[in-house]
């Protein structure tokens, strides 16, 4: 049997040592009437058949072709060296570094990760990572509610719809009220914030791609004693003002764009970085520096009194693990790119997205609004967003994240471009949009 080392002789020797008759006899305490049920599972396969089966499944996926999909994840350049180093078997097959003397590899890499996230966001303390951007955002709202002892949060509609959905699930359980700020001209207007609001949550760039006026929004939050939560694309921080610079208290987001494949949505990782005043409220693992008995620098999990295995029902969160390996992918990738490489990836994205928008405008397409954008923007379409996406997919181009009716834009899609999109890819998308009747001349333009 695969993965099981015991020969019949081994089993016999083990049973003799234990003093029982058979392996089945070890299970005599299980309710007799329920033992060994008939479970309908497909038959076992050897490795060759397994891989053939998986390849035949994978053949029904169509990941190839020019790709303009954003809406929470994007394809960016990942050099070969990144997975090669991050996915070494010592990192892949380790567990939580409970014994720091033999876990300095993961502990130090996490300390380096925390430093890099702190640099990117301009905030003092990063935890060791969380599940994804959406759950990190929900945890940020819970943190704000604990810190301010207030039971209401204000969230911009520009925050990804799935992130807001997760926020709703988490906060409903604790009777924390959520109010949503509608967008005006594709961006969040500076609101009057009431004094019972725990935090204001704004995504930069927002779901429609627009850049938000983060300093003014932060000021409005602080004027009411609320915390500012910035939901950010970490790659954009190669160029954009870091949340710490405009006074945000918490930066959260999804780390996929820093060096993980899109993997049909996961695993990536979530990050949370906070101002130092919020350290004791921070959920999740933290690695700190110390010394060993010989005075050598070493790293260890620290401030664990915040966590569930110590505080149980009084913990800051029930989170137990982090997303270590995918966060390590980002750590290696950021070290591989360095400040210059990260800037080039981000600037290349900006360039190609604006080139695409310009080309579409040239062709008479209805690129929504005058708001500035980073590497995603919104295009109004004739047919529904999902119909446009399917029509383009039939022509071998992946593009068009549907925009929901909550935005009041009619039919629309979000388009993204990254440094991996070539000028030829852009022409392929323009041609495909023309073919499916979504460009002027073909009569778009109700906007």
């Amino acid at each position, binding site marked *: 049997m695969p993965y099981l080392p015991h020969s019949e002789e081994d089993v016999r020797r083990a049973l003799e040592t234990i003093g029982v008759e058979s392996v089945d006899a070890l299970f005599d305490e299980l309710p007799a009437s329920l033992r060994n049920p008939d479970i309908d599972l497909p038959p076992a396969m050897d490795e060759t058949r397994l891989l053939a089966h998986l390849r035949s499944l994978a053949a029904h996926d169509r990941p190839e072709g020019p790709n303009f999909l954003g809406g929470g994840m994007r394809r960016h350049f990942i050099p070969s060296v990144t997975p090669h180093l991050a996915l070494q078997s010592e990192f892949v097959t380790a567990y939580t570094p409970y014994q720091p003397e033999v876990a300095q590899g993961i502990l130090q890499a996490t300390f380096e990760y925390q430093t890099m996230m702190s640099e990117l966001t301009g905030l003092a303390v990063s935890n060791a990572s969380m599940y994804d951007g959406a759950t990190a955002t929900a945890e940020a709202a819970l943190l704000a509610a604990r810190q301010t002892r207030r039971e209401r949060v204000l969230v911009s509609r520009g925050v990804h719809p799935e992130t807001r959905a997760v926020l709703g699930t988490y906060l409903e359980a604790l009777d924390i009220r959520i109010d949503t700020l509608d967008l005006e001209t594709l961006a969040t207007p500076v609101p009057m914030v009431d004094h019972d609001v725990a935090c204001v949550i704004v995504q930069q760039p927002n779901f429609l791609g627009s850049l938000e006026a983060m300093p003014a929004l932060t000021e409005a939050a602080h004027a009411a004693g609320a915390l500012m939560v910035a939901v950010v694309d970490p790659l954009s921080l190669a160029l*954009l003002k870091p949340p710490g610079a405009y006074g945000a208290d918490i930066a959260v987001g999804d780390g996929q764009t820093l060096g993980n494949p899109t993997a049909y949505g996961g695993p990536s990782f979530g990050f949370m970085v906070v101002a130092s005043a919020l350290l004791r409220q921070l959920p999740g693992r933290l690695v700190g520096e110390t010394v060993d008995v010989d005075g050598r*620098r070493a790293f260890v999990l620290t401030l664990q009194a915040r966590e569930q295995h110590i505080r149980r029902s009084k913990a800051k969160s029930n989170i137990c*693990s982090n997303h270590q390996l995918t966060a390590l992918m980002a750590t290696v990738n950021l070290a591989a790119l360095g400040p210059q490489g990260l800037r080039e990836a981000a600037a290349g994205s900006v360039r190609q997205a*604006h080139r695409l928008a310009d080309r579409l405008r040239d062709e008479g397409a209805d690129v929504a609004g005058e708001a500035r954008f980073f590497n995603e923007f919104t295009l109004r379409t004739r047919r529904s967003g999902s119909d446009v996406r399917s029509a383009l997919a039939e022509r071998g181009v992946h593009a068009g994240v549907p925009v929901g009716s909550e935005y009041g834009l009619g039919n629309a899609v979000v388009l993204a471009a990254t440094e991996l999109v070539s000028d030829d890819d852009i022409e392929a998308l323009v041609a495909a949009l023309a073919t499916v009747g979504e460009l002027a001349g073909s009569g778009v333009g109700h906007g």
Partner: protein
Amino acid sequence: MAEATSRDFPLIFERSRPGRRAARPPRFDEPDLALLLGEDQLRDAPPRLPEVSELDLVRHFTQLAHRQFSIDGNVYPLGSCTMKYNPKVHEEAARLFQDLHPQQAPETAQGTLRLLYELQRDLGALTGMDAVSLQPAAGAHGELTGILMIRAYHRARGEGEQRRVVLVPDGAHGTNPATAAMAGYRVVEIPSDDRGEVDLEAFTRALGPEVAAVMLTNPNTVGVFETRILEIARRAHEAGAQLYYDGANLNAIVGRVRPGDMGFDVVHLNLHKTFTTPHGGGGPGTGPVGVKAHLAEFLPVPLVVDEEQGYRLSEDVPSSIGRMRSFVGNVGNLIRAYAYIRTLGLEGLRRVSGHAVLNANYLRVRMQQAGYTIPFDRLNMHEFVARPPEGVHTLDVAKALLDEGMHPMTVYFPLIVKEAMMVEPTETESLETLDAYAEALGAILERAAEDDGYLPGAPYHTPVRRLDEVRAARQPVLSYAFDEEPGSSG
């Protein structure tokens, strides 16, 4: 913090030299960023990321890997963690699917969607549950999903206000009470009896109209099967409570008895345990949740459905608790778990639990022979609790094991046993490895008896020795202190 010395392993930031780099993205002429993005949106100074050559990068992370213990290196019998071998073919399997984008049109993702659909079905069959969600990103996340569904169920029946309490055994994983608190519940702990099982009398007294759920792990955290589980389920249901199965210890019983048949209403699975997706140094895990039919209307969205025009993600769940995370789930790990189930089939999975329990009992006997005490001296399941002889500290034994190149067991858990050592060898270890482990444990006791100074000083041969953990907590240093002022001030 003290200056780094030459004996310290360098940080990647200390290897950095201006102008170096390892990787170069596709090159474009840089656009006028101030014009496109607005001058006021741009950061003032670049983030201080390391600048290293590709070979420096390779050496750094390869040497870090060498400072890291792993299953691939040696035995790693952490109790309640199920550190079994992670098959290499699973990594190849996951790579076949990794380029798919979550926003693709569903008709271009039919392979992955079919795989996920079949996995929902197979996990349901294995647990005896009627419907499964693949969303949760970890065991604790699955717990929260399950408890929120139970909460929604009671509310739908008009009992939401009344049922405010969740019962957990005193030996439970810390995530159980923390999860209940996150869902707004008050936690009441149930004591264990002298056989290591839930105290049935105390449990029955604690049941009442205010109890929403009972969270159990079976076998429980001392590695003992709750033999009165059918009675527990009957009494819980009579009192109107829902029974939650923490799947952390499913490896003991997979294929042999199903949580659904035992009377559980909700189950979460830790795919990184029983279904051997790699632990990755602490994640990503994956914690799918299965429920009985009466809870299916509350499942989180999306679910994978099979329709005439193909597979797709459906948000059509009438009373869904909502979303637990973005997109469908940790698909890379779901693929690995699928590959494992397809490789072993039912017969293989039964043998997995059989040999997991065989190995744990074998090691229990061998540790007893080596001088360790077993507080609950009976046949155990996939793990057991031991403790060292009087006067010897578990922590010291753990540190001494590190010098033997072996990983300690889980220490000081469960909290209900003093000096607890919780040992879970898993089915993938050979008897020779278990013999060597028990012999090393015995030799540590012998040496400790000869030399008073030996144990408190251990380990002696690890990359670093015992750490000053108090200093780490009292003077937290959580990121590298750059020489100059932060460029991150924007």
